[in-house]
Structures are given as C-alpha cells and as structure tokens.
C-alpha cells in the first residue's frame, strides 16, 4: 500500500492528475512562463458544433432570455435623463441541474465516458457538483462530490448543505469536509482509490463548454433586438464563466464589452475556520475572483483553461447587501425567483445600466436555481444567527463579516470599479515570481501580453518596474 501521508500524496499529485484527466499538459509547455493556450484549447477541447450536440443531447443549453422591463424602468427612475440601458437576463437556471455549470459538466462527463472511466469526481462546494452529478446520472457513471461545507463546530453554510442534498438527489456520493485547502489531499486520495475521472472545473473541455453560452447569447440577442449587446456582465469566481462566455461571444463575432462582477468579501480569509460562516456568499466572491484573475494556475489542474484577464474589459465588485436586495427585487418586480449567488452580475448590471444610454443593451448572462438554504431568506437568517448585523443604509459602508447593508433606496446600488492596471500588473508579478526573474524571453513577454489583454509596452514597463523593486 502506498504512503498516505499529506506530503507523500501531494508529492504524487502530477502522476495522479495525469491518470485522472488523460491530458499530458507538458506538451503545451515552453519550460518557462509561456504555454500554448490556444493549442491546448484546440487539441483537447471540442468544436462549438460538437459541444452544442453534446449538450443538446442532455437538454443543456438553449436557455431563454428575458427582457427585465420593470427593472429597466427602475434603473431609469434612478438615472439621469436619457440614461438607463435595457437590461436582459439569460436564465441559465433553466438548465437541467439549475445553473450554467451544466454546460461545463456536460462536456466533462461526456469526455470521461468516451475515455472509458467508470465514474467522475469533482471537488466543489458550488453548483458544479449538482451539474456533474446530474450529468453522471444521465450517462450512467458513478459520481463523488467533495465539498468544503462545515466549520469546526459542524455548522454548515446553508447554501452548501443544499447543494449536497441536490447532488445526493442525483445519486452522487457526497464527501463533506471542514474548512481548509487540504480538501485537495482528500480529493487526490479518492482519485487514486477509485481511478475515476477528475471532472475539474478548469479543463479545456469544461471551459469550452461555456462557449456555447456566449455564442447562444449573441445569436438570441440579434434575433431579439437586431444587434449585439453593448455590455455582458459575468459573475466572476474561478474565471471559467467569464472566459467561456467571452470566447463564445467572439466565436459569434460579437464585440460586446465583457464585465466581471464579484461580491466584495475583502477582509475575510477564505481558509479561516472562524470566518467561514461570517460570509453570506460561498461563491462568486472576491476571495476566489481576485486570486484566480491575477494567477489562474492555482486550481486542480496544471494549466487552467479559465484565464479571465484575457477577456475582461472591466472588473467591478458589489456588496452582499446589494446582491440580496437585487435577488428580492428580481422576485418582487420581475416575478423570477432565483438563487442569490447567481444574481451577483445582476446587481452589477443594474448599477452599470444607470451609466449607459437608454438605447444601449446590457445582458446578465446567468441565473441559478433557488431553494431551501440557497435563498435570500435563509442566507440572511443564517447571517443574523452568526452575529452579522443586517440593516438598511448605504451598501458602500458594508464591512464583510460584520454587517450586511441593504440599500435604503435602489439608487444607492453602485458597483465599485477595481483598478484594471493594478490587476494586470499583479498577474505579471505573479508570473515573474514563478520563474524568479524579470529577464524573460520574447515568447514569455508575448504570452503576458495575451494574458493581460494589454500591449508589449505595458508588459515591458511592468517588468522594468518589477526589476527596480
């Protein structure tokens, strides 16, 4: 029997992963910072047509788009004359497992079955677990979902407890852990024990699965309003939602601005046992969004196919209170009851719509299902039980972990812009830290231009700044 100690198992990481994903990532590597991203996407992913077929066969995709007329009217009441873009919503909650994650899972599970794996494993506390479980059920594969769910007092985040129930409803085994990054250790042990496929969120086929969302969105909007959306807002955590959607928009020939939105959880440590239940959002927040945007290769695969900074035009944050308020708003004036986390981009879009002209179009590209635990009331109730103050006021004053401030009036909903220059420089810094020098090759420089959606001048200037430090 092999050594099961933490160090020994982490030491076997690459070997375990290669067996569990079936991709030899080394063929895309240059040996330094750069790797051939597009080659990886091309050789290991699927074409758009293939993905539409794979997803269509399990009822995934082709979700409806709603025009949120009352929300648009509300935004116009809160804007200067002539301002207030038309707001549209792509109802991804209509997918079989209740979120856009069905698109990622459809490809991953199809691929696992094609390669002959008997089962799939995914490490996720989010909607992706249910998506993988649902797809595994359709394909007759076994499924294990590994969740970070509880603090050390066995108090679980209601949203995650609900997702466990949903996975089990689809016949999956759910393994629940307390807080900590060593979840990865348990995950590796299970991959080794079962020989199942690692249905990682970050493989080329998983990310490519979201391209259908962006593509569909562009086609639907052209049919509906005769033009491409001016702005598409994506909730951003690990970056796959934004990367896939933006790639799909490009494949449709749309040049919409792509805006990332995350719930502001600054000040809370994501691996802290005592802070775990002080937050009211377990995904779509800055605790994932910022680190994954500024360095994507921190996931369960050697090279992540989710590289959001390549596609991001703007990155905004919204307060927890704003997202809960918008979730209630969506139900109360649009008659659509959806889960809070998926409405992060909706809160941001409401704010951005107020800056835009009336004849412009902004699209929120997802929703998620709602239910016990995963709903504005239990999540606020849970926060209050954990000592978080809930009140009306100015959400700009919200302090994550201390209070949740619901806007006293919708005009107070205001997305906060993050400094894109700083974020781009941060990615370059992280890349340089990997190799330990700013004296990098021409190929590396060009790679960083792509990674940061900037210019050679910008990358060279940043490298110069870093070398002077």
């Amino acid at each position, binding site marked *: 029997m092999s050594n099961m*100690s933490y160090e020994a198992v982490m030491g076997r990481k690459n070997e375990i992963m290669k067996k569990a994903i079936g991709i030899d990532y080394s063929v895309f590597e240059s040996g330094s910072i750069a790797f051939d991203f597009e080659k990886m996407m091309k050789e290991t992913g699927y074409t758009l047509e293939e993905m539409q077929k794979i997803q269509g066969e399990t009822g995934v995709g082709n979700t409806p788009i709603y025009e949120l007329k009352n929300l648009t009217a509300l935004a116009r009441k809160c804007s200067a004359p002539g301002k207030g873009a038309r707001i549209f919503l792509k109802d991804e909650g209509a997918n079989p497992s209740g979120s856009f994650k069905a698109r990622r899972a459809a490809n991953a599970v199809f691929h696992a079955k094609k390669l002959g794996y008997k089962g799939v494993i995914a490490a996720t506390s989010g909607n992706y677990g249910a998506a993988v479980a649902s797809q595994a059920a359709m394909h007759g594969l*076994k499924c294990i979902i590994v969740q970070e769910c509880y603090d050390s007092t066995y108090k679980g985040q209601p949203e995650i407890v609900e997702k466990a129930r949903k996975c089990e409803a689809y*016949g999956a085994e759910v*393994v629940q*852990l*307390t807080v900590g990054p060593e979840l990865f250790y348990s995950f590796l042990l299970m991959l080794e024990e079962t020989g199942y496929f690692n249905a990682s969120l970050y493989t080329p086929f998983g990310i490519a699965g979201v391209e259908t969302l962006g593509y569909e969105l562009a086609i639907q909007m052209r049919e509906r309003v005769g033009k491409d959306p001016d702005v598409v807002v994506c909730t951003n955590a690990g970056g796959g939602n934004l990367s896939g959607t933006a790639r799909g928009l490009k494949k449709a020939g749309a040049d919409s601005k792509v805006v990332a939105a995350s719930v502001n959880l600054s000040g809370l440590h994501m691996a802290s046992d005592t802070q775990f239940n002080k937050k009211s959002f377990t995904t779509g927040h800055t605790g994932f969004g910022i680190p994954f945007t500024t360095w994507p290769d921190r996931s369960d695969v050697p090279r992540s196919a989710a590289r959001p900074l390549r596609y991001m035009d703007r990155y905004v944050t919204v307060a927890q209170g704003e997202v809960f308020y918008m979730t209630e708003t969506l139900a109360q*004036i649009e008659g659509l009851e959806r889960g809070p986390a998926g409405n992060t981009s909706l809160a941001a879009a409401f704010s951005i719509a107020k800056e835009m002209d009336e004849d412009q179009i902004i699209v929120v590209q997802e929703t998620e299902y709602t239910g016990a635990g995963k709903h504005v009331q239990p999540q606020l*109730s849970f926060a209050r039980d954990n000592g978080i103050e809930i009140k009306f006021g100015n959400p700009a004053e919200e302090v994550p972990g201390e209070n949740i401030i619901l806007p006293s009036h919708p005009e107070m909903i205001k997305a906060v812009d993050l400094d894109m220059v700083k974020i781009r420089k941060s990615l370059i810094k992280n890349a340089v830290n990997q190799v330990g020098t700013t004296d990098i090759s021409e190929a590396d420089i060009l790679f960083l231009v792509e990674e940061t959606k900037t210019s050679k001048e910008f990358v060279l200037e940043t490298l110069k700044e870093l070398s002077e430090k």
Partner: protein
Amino acid sequence: MKAKKGDWVMVHNIVLTPEQRAPQVPDDTKKVPLEMWVKGYAQAAAKKGEEVEIETITGRKVTGTLVEVGPTYAHSFGNHVPELLKIGKQLREILFGGDSIE
C-alpha cells in the same frame, strides 16, 4: 442510537490532526483538525460513537465513527427576515406609485 447492519448511516473521520495540517492554513484553522463526514450502509451493527465500516452509494468502503443513523436534511428557509418585506413594498411604490396597478 444504534445502527443495524445495512442501515443508512453517517460516519465521521479526522483526516488530518492539527499537527498534520498544511503550512499555509491560517492560525485559527491550524488549531483544529480537518474533519470528514460520509454516508453509507453500515457493514455491521454499531452504537453511536463506535467505529464502523460503511459502503457508500458508489461502493467505496470507508471506516469512521458512527454519528447518525438515517441522516436527512435539516436546512430550511430560516427565520423570518422582516427587512425583505419592505423591499417589495418600496419597489412597487417607486415603480407604480401608491395603490395603482399599471
């Protein structure tokens, strides 16, 4: 609480003791173990607190401390949150004004 052989149960395990935790975890997390809960069919009769082997729904064998027999779901819609009622009322007032229905 007792489980018979074949009952659907939940077991608990310590995956890593505080001393075995990864170096990068924050101090508060380092003070507590990494714990795990899994459900499955008890492979033998056992009392709560005793060690028992289970077979999970995917057929894995896991040994752990019996913590629950017939585990179910207790999550709910939580307690009443009075603030939520105010949001709908305010929005209708802003959009449609007073009692009028557009």
